[in-house]
């Protein structure tokens, strides 16, 4: 030990020849940086198993993930609303399956999970609209196309032409209304969050009930359908 001292080499408490350094050999430099992100490998990895079963499971996995995205369980952050609806977006909307409405079995869940009637109204309305809107616009284009076809057949019946005009006008108006309502709902939601802390919300609910939900009010509002 003591013999190592003063010979230009750091002093070790043990014989460094035991760990494979010959007498007089230089020690490796001290490494001060982290190891590389993609270190070289000495041996090539074995290729993946690729038989029919694996292929099938791979397909299953991709399909499962895609299906999950369409189920009501998938909660994405709501996209920022774009002022102009992009044409390209129209074909991308993967609208959720209509028949896949999910009503949780409230008997199995803690009571606090159950949305209180008033609280759910704000966001709920938005949600139904969010999903209902896409098919609606698609629907309306289909409707209009149909109408135009009809018109072509009928030729010069001006009466029906006026009708469509009216209808379309009406639709545009309704949409505007919807937008306004959305904003109102937004405000309402924020307001609600503050309110819910204090739990004295009867007066608000009084006003809330007077609100008209427009065309979508026919579905069941008592339970939150996700």
């Amino acid at each position, binding site marked *: 030990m003591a013999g190592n001292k003063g010979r230009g080499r750091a002093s070790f408490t043990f014989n460094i020849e035991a760990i*494979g350094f010959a007498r007089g050999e230089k020690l490796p430099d001290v490494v001060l940086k982290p190891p590389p992100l993609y270190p070289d490998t*000495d041996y090539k990895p074995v290729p*993946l198993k690729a038989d029919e079963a694996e292929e099938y499971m*791979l397909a299953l996995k*991709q399909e499962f993930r895609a299906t999950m995205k369409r189920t009501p369980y998938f909660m994405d952050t709501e996209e920022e609303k774009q002022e102009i609806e992009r044409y390209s977006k129209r074909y991308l909307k993967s609208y959720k399956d*209509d028949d896949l409405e999910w009503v949780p079995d409230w008997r199995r869940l803690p009571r*606090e999970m159950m949305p209180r009637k008033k609280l759910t109204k704000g966001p709920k309305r938005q949600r139904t609209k969010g999903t209902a809107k896409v098919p609606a616009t698609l629907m309306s284009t289909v409707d209009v196309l149909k109408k135009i076809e009809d018109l072509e057949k009928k030729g010069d019946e001006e009466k029906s032409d006026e009708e469509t005009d009216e209808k379309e006008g009406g639709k545009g108006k309704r949409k505007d209304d919807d937008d306004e309502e959305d904003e109102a709902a937004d405000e309402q939601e924020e307001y609600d969050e503050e309110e819910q802390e204090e739990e004295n919300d009867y007066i608000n609910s009084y006003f809330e009930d007077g609100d008209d939900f427009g065309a979508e009010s026919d579905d069941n509002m008592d339970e939150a359908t996700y």
Partner: protein
Amino acid sequence: MTQAEIKLCSLLLQEHFGEIVDKIGTHLIRTGSQPLRAIVHGTGTSLDQVKKALCVLIQHNLVTYQIHKRGIVEYEAHCSRILRILRYPRYIYTAKTLYSDTGELIVEELLLNGKMTMSAVVKKVADRLTETMEDGKTMDYAEVSSTFCRLADTHFVQRCPLVPDPPESAEAQPPPPAPTLSINEKDMYLVPKLNLIGKGKRRRSSDDDAAGEPRPKRPKQTAESKEPMPDDGIYWQANLDRFHQHFRDQSIVNAVANRMDQTSSEIVRTMLRMSEITTSSGAPFTQPLSSNEIFRSLPVGYNISKQVLDQYLTLLADDPLEFVGKSGDSGGGMYVINLHKALASLAMATLESIVQERFGSRCARIFRLVLRKKHLEQKQVEDFAMIPAKEAKDMLYKLLSENLISLQEIPKTPDHAPSRTFYLYTVNSLSAARMLLRRCYKSIANLIERRQFETRENKRLLEKSQRVEAILASMQATGAEEAQLQEIEEMITAPERQQLESLKRNVNKWVPLVLPQLLARSFGRFLGGMGDQRSYIFQAL
């Protein structure tokens, strides 16, 4: 719970349930069990979203709740359960191999929805099967429910714990803040008596009734669902432990087949099948089976005499790996399968093969040497491995720095002076296996991230191809001419097409499914074999 596991859980939740659920779920994993208000506060998400996300997580059995004192309900996420999402395709595929398409769809629906009532499953599966069938043919409900019963009989699906019936004196005391779910062991696999009559319905997808049909149909459907089904409230879920048991049995059978021959593997398969339901999934041994019983249960096509069977059994019991053990002499000899031992050997074999593939055969020789001899000094390693001392040191240190081999100091004197200390190299197989398992999780997470990155980078291209496909489909539906279709198809240029192809190939490659499969499973098994690490087995599988 390591960072790698949390990261992977978060990615899995995000891919399957969206950003919000991911946020809530990851928060719960990090913090442990928490009450609702703390979750809202901790994640900065609105109360409604938290509630909905928790509902989703509870529905999929990823989160459970518990009532604490003073009536506070706490929610807890189960990381190991979330990691099992990785294995869903495997469960579904297993169901397909065992119970054909019907079984596949039943398990798939259960996994997609977390839990469902039997009537809902049967209806949905019948509808889906009908859709794939030729025109005019339909799937009968009865057929689907018989497959469901078979799945329940073999324990592949099980009942979820039930909500207890409300007591008569409900008014006297306020209801608890959360129901206490419980289930009787006996009822777990009891299929409710249902007479589901009907056939799968085809979804009307053709264009002519797209505008008019669904509207009037809607109210009818809701009216239908209004009246409760007789099995209302009895939910079913896929029994993942049973699937794991099946995987375990299969790899034991494969191992025996590789070691001896087809016939002996068939015998082991028979033994495992006989004890499938009687042995719990964590038991170290199967129930003892007499050779007469085994002889009777051999598959019909297998023509071996009782004598040959006895010879095989003796041979299996004498095998140094001890997959099969002899537990008694009555009834022509009682035999058991030593499950834990089998798993441990399989896992050790995997560990050795990993060292071999990553560091070469000479490192593997050193590794095996240390494994067999338990504790070795450096000098002994160099001598026994018959590798030049300098290289042997190099390899040994490499394995040590990768944590595959550990170092044990035994000082001769209390001052721990290096010159008077033994340095013994040893393999701590449990920690080595755990480390490799963690590394698997890490690489899966990396692969998922890589795939997401690649998809993001090529978003425009993917969107374009999607759009063109949508336009093509709509044109085809309206009966467009061939030339028109071709024109649209050409909207994607050749180089773009090429890029898409390569992207698809790469993304496929990165879909992490195959790589960790073998590793994760064997380690889990191995850990399972180590006795008290039972819970670990399920995490890895």
